[in-house]
């Protein structure tokens, strides 16, 4: 993937971990989150999967930040974490509410409206 970024100045030594590695980890995390979101039924697990996807973006941002030698990406990550925290609070509240109604945490419980 490095050739895609050929116009940027690569700061890393040859043998060290490169941007490509970070991006691979990030993409893998995103994919795992996505697959988990689709395949798991438990609402809490599903929410954690979205967290995984958020953090995948965070890793990419930090890697790019390092790559571009500026701090924008890192700043971005801080805000992303904040938003993720807010979402987590909402998710937990929602899960509690839902559990009280159906005594279950399965996402499939909630399918009365369709078509």
């Amino acid at each position, binding site marked *: *993937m490095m050739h*895609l*970024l050929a*116009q*940027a100045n690569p700061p890393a030594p040859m043998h060290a971990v490169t941007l490509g590695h970070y*991006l691979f980890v*990030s993409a893998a995390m*995103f994919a795992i*989150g*996505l697959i988990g*979101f689709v395949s798991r039924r438990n*609402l809490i697990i*599903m*929410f954690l999967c*979205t967290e995984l*996807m*958020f953090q*995948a*973006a*965070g890793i*990419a*941002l930090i*890697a*790019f*930040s390092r*790559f*571009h030698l*500026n*701090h*924008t*990406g890192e*700043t*971005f990550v801080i*805000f*992303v974490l904040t*938003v993720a925290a*807010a*979402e987590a609070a*909402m*998710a937990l509240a*929602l899960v509690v*509410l*839902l559990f009280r*109604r159906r005594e279950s945490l399965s*996402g499939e419980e*909630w*399918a*009365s*409206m*369709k*078509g």
Partner: protein
Amino acid sequence: MILGAASIAEKIPFLWPEIAAFLATCVVMVVGLSPNLGTRRLCAPIAGLGLVAAGVLAAFTTPEGTGPLPFLMPFAKVVLCGVGLVLLLLASGVVDRDEEAVIAAGKATFNPLRTNRAEFYAFFLFSLTGLMLCASADDLIWLFLALELTSLPTYIMVTMSRTGRDGARSCEAGVKYFFLGALGAAMFLYGFALLYGGTGTTSLRGIERAFVSQSGSGGINSIAMVGMLLSIVGVGFKIAAVPMHLYTPDVYEGSASPVAAFLAFVPKTAGFLAIILLVSTMGWTFARDGSAAGGHSLPQLVLLTLWVMAALTMTVGNVLALLQKSVRRILAYSSIAHSGYMLVGVIAGPGDGTSITRNGIAAVLFYLLCYGLMNVGAFAVLACLDRKAGDDSPELETVDDLRGLCSSHPVLGWTMVVCALGLMGFPPLLGFFAKVPLFTSAIAAGEIPLVIVLGLNSAIAAFYYLQLVAAPMLEAPDTTVRTEPTGHAARPMAALISAASVVGVAVASGPLMEAGAKAGGKPVAKKPAEQPKRPPSGPSGH
């Protein structure tokens, strides 16, 4: 790249409306916790005042922006404050109805943990603040935060909008909306990250410059391109575009009508503003050299993505709306279809940046206003009536429930007729004036196949909108379903205002279109003279 004090100070003049709305939010949060019912009821008026203040500030204090669409902010903010006020009228009585009934009966005393008026109106304002911030955004971080600020409150508003037996439906709506929303947010966040990676900056102007230099030297960076596509598709969740549209009907059906109306306008507007801002970095040329008569210079990939999204969105929305019995599902699917129409304007691009008939962006901005008004009107009719002897839900549900509304509740019936005709794009009404610029700008941009798809879809849409016209107007009232007003005087007022706007704004559409054209227009020619005064560095300077 830390926001310096100077650059923050530079931003303040743009943010007075948001600051006003935020202050109103804080007051509402405090006031809404008062044990005194009278004081708690001040929440809505205070929120309204905040919106009025924000609108006035937006109209008079907002300076010319520095982005590619320098006049976008005042128009967008005034429009959304206006529609927000109508939504606020409509939202009266959504929360605390059961709670207050119990307290009034003396069966319980006020419990700040069980009342949620403060939260509801605060979220309402937060969401609108986020929407205004979207219009002000000149940075990806800002845009991300603004989008999330718009969306997060709506998740809660949906979930809390109905109580009691209906609560199950609003919970279902909430869970679908929240989880899918988080998925969508993750997607465009990842897109933003890649966009940053491909260009090295999050400033929209910086990204634009990077794209210009990249296309000068062998094409746009692939990472940035993937990021852009992912961002557009992810933001597509907010506007309910295919393939992110699936939540729409269920969420609209599950939430109370005022909230559904809110969802159809606020997140959608935020999404469109975001998409316009994102796409604008890809180098629309307002025919800067003055030679070519407008046209777009979007990269083929982005254009193709938008094209497929637009065509699929309107088609899917319309054909599924045909099969519906529930009015709210019809409106939800039509909301999807309307997003598809508006994407056509985005594809058409700003043309030569002058008249609205050739400027797709201006057409979209004007359409957002018109759609917001018409849609609020339609939902308001549903919100105004309760079924007296309902088996499952007190709110009006099916098209049959609307039968004979023009004779039983003339104001509401005719509002539905006018709004449905308007949404259909019936000539003397608002929807028509909104749709014409979309057509003309797309034709001017040479998107003839898309215009044909748009025309066919408008024809399909007539099928189901005419149901909504015929049921109240032509059919006899259904005697088995007794309906009665909900007793919230503000709701019929919202309906009336919307209906009046659908007719009245059409008359005044000339100046509004001009305002839209200005908002979607290019920096005016006096720019060079002012250039020295306004240094090009944004807040995220390098």
